[in-house]
């Protein structure tokens, strides 16, 4: 059931909504006061109860991640916020930074306290100049009020927040690459383990959280962890609260919408997104950023043996609630909850070509399967589009993609392989037609 919320988006559309005055008028900086009155352990427990699944794409439970930080250590701890937002189709974190930056500042204060850190770095991709300006502005306002610095809200627990910037590299959204980039190095992902909670920024225990993950934390303390979790229809699957959803591509009202977790693709595309552009049939939908497998509109949920998902067995994929575990169970991925919709004016071969070009451009080049594989598939699709490929080469795409999966340092490789595997499997006929007709079968267009 569609349940729109405004925990993060209450300031959207208000000209001065990003200011401290507006934030406090709307009830801001109340959650942090409650949090700082608790012990560090109580703060982490409250966040655990909220069942915030990481909003950066992997869906890891936020409170659990915080609990991995050492209880006592001689080294400083760091909170690092991932605001590198570069996953194709994803445009939600930018709205928080531009329109509600104080929610991130408040969340960072709580986060630092919860993980035993005194400094937070917000890593913003360089292109987002307005976001950086608004974040710095919010930090300055908060510091002037004494909310940051030596005694936030009268508590003897110093906290500072800094904005750090990248320089244009999608891979820096991967958390260990981001840490290298924060340290002033090339943004190449690190081998794990060690994990950031042991050896993160500057060799110290570090928690990396997505911008939206940290921005929703104040709401958890404002309303209580349990109550927050129960906003979600997937509360029983430990996927709690409300979150931002995005929809772009061929819909009538593309944009960012906030709703309780458990929204369905049908609600996102038709109720919030206004339906398919030009009222044409839907070709497919990528639920949460380009690294998620694409779904066809006529797919059904096939989960006969899992009682957790019995309610949706046999239903259309468009009616499966958007949750971390629901989409994992159908072999898909929820990702960032920002869907890309295509109507039938789009050519699936060209759509995949567009994405593979992206991955080829953004691979950091450390792992052979990823570096070579992305380039190889790009060359094959180019041949398909030009009508020069054979059926054997078409089959090679899936083979190469399977060889990338699981054989790389970071999850970029899997993220690149997913669209390759899903597009070729689900639009097999379109690909075959291209090969058979020498590339003359299709509209050769992505947009009308």
């Amino acid at each position, binding site marked *: 059931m569609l349940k729109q919320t405004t925990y993060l988006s209450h300031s959207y559309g208000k000209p001065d909504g990003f200011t401290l005055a507006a934030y406090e008028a709307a009830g801001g900086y109340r959650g942090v006061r409650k949090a700082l009155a608790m012990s560090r352990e109580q703060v982490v427990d409250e966040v655990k109860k909220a069942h915030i699944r990481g909003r950066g794409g992997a869906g890891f439970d936020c409170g659990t991640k915080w609990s991995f930080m050492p209880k006592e250590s001689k080294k400083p701890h760091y909170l690092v916020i991932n605001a590198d937002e*570069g996953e*194709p189709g994803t*445009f939600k974190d930018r709205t928080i930074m531009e329109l509600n930056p104080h929610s991130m500042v408040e969340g960072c204060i709580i986060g630092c306290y919860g993980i035993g850190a005194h400094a937070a770095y917000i890593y913003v991709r360089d292109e987002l100049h307005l976001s950086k300006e608004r974040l710095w502005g919010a930090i300055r306002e908060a510091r002037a009020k004494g909310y940051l610095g030596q005694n936030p809200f009268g508590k003897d627990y110093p906290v500072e927040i800094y904005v750090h910037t990248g320089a244009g590299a999608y891979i820096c959204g991967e958390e260990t690459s981001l840490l290298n980039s924060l340290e*002033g190095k090339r943004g190449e992902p690190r081998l794990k383990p060690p994990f950031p909670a042991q050896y993160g920024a*500057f060799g110290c225990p570090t928690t990396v959280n997505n911008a939206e993950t940290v921005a929703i934390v104040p709401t958890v303390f404002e309303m209580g962890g349990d109550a927050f979790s129960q906003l979600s229809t997937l509360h029983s699957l430990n996927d709690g609260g409300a979150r931002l959803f995005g929809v772009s591509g061929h819909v009538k009202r593309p944009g960012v919408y906030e709703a309780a977790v458990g929204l369905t693709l049908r609600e996102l595309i038709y109720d919030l997104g206004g339906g398919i552009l030009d009222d044409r049939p839907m070709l497919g939908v990528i639920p949460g950023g*380009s690294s998620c497998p694409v779904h066809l509109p006529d797919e059904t949920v096939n989960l006969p043996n899992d009682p957790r998902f019995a309610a949706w067995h046999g239903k259309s994929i468009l009616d499966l609630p958007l949750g971390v575990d629901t989409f994992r169970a159908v072999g898909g991925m929820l990702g960032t909850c920002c869907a890309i919709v295509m109507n039938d004016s789009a050519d699936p071969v060209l759509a995949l070509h567009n994405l593979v070009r992206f991955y080829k451009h953004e691979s950091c080049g450390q792992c052979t399967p990823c570096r070579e594989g992305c380039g190889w598939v790009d060359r094959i699709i180019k041949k398909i589009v030009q009508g020069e490929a054979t059926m054997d080469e078409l089959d090679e795409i899936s083979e190469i993609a399977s060889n990338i999966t699981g054989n790389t340092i970071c999850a970029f490789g899997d993220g690149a392989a997913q669209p390759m595997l899903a597009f070729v499997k689900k639009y097999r006929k379109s690909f075959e037609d291209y090969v058979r007709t020498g590339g003359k079968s299709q509209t050769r267009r992505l947009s009308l």
Partner: protein
Amino acid sequence: MAFALSAERERELEEIVARYPNKMAACIPVLHLCQEQNQNWVSDEVITFVAHRLDLSPAHVKGVVTFYTLFNQKPVGKHQVWVCQTLSCALRGAGEILSHCEKRLGCHVGETSKDGKVTLRTAECLASCGTAPMMQIDKKYYENLSVPEVDRLLDGLLKG
């Protein structure tokens, strides 16, 4: 000629360095600062300067510069235009916007217009997919573009 920062940017450099537990971490923000002062590109002189000020080897700084696409390794036009070409924008007509830019500027992607005013580039997803198609001009985003709107924007750049 050796590279130097303005007095104001020197102060900013000190501020940046103070944010981190070591100097190396300031490398990327300081490179941005220097690039801005150096007509938007990173020359060998800039690399030497940054290496010297942050106690890094020039090879380290060069390695960083070559990794990130936003550090320009050669001179660029007075203005930089990036047209997002990734899927959400492509579905909303980015291809048409891009070819129109090429026509208007008389140069291809990656090149600078003859008068040296505008360097044209493509970008990968700029987190503006809900307002596609879009482009970035210098530090600003322009969203929900149409061809006439692009014309208006480019006119402004070419005249200015």
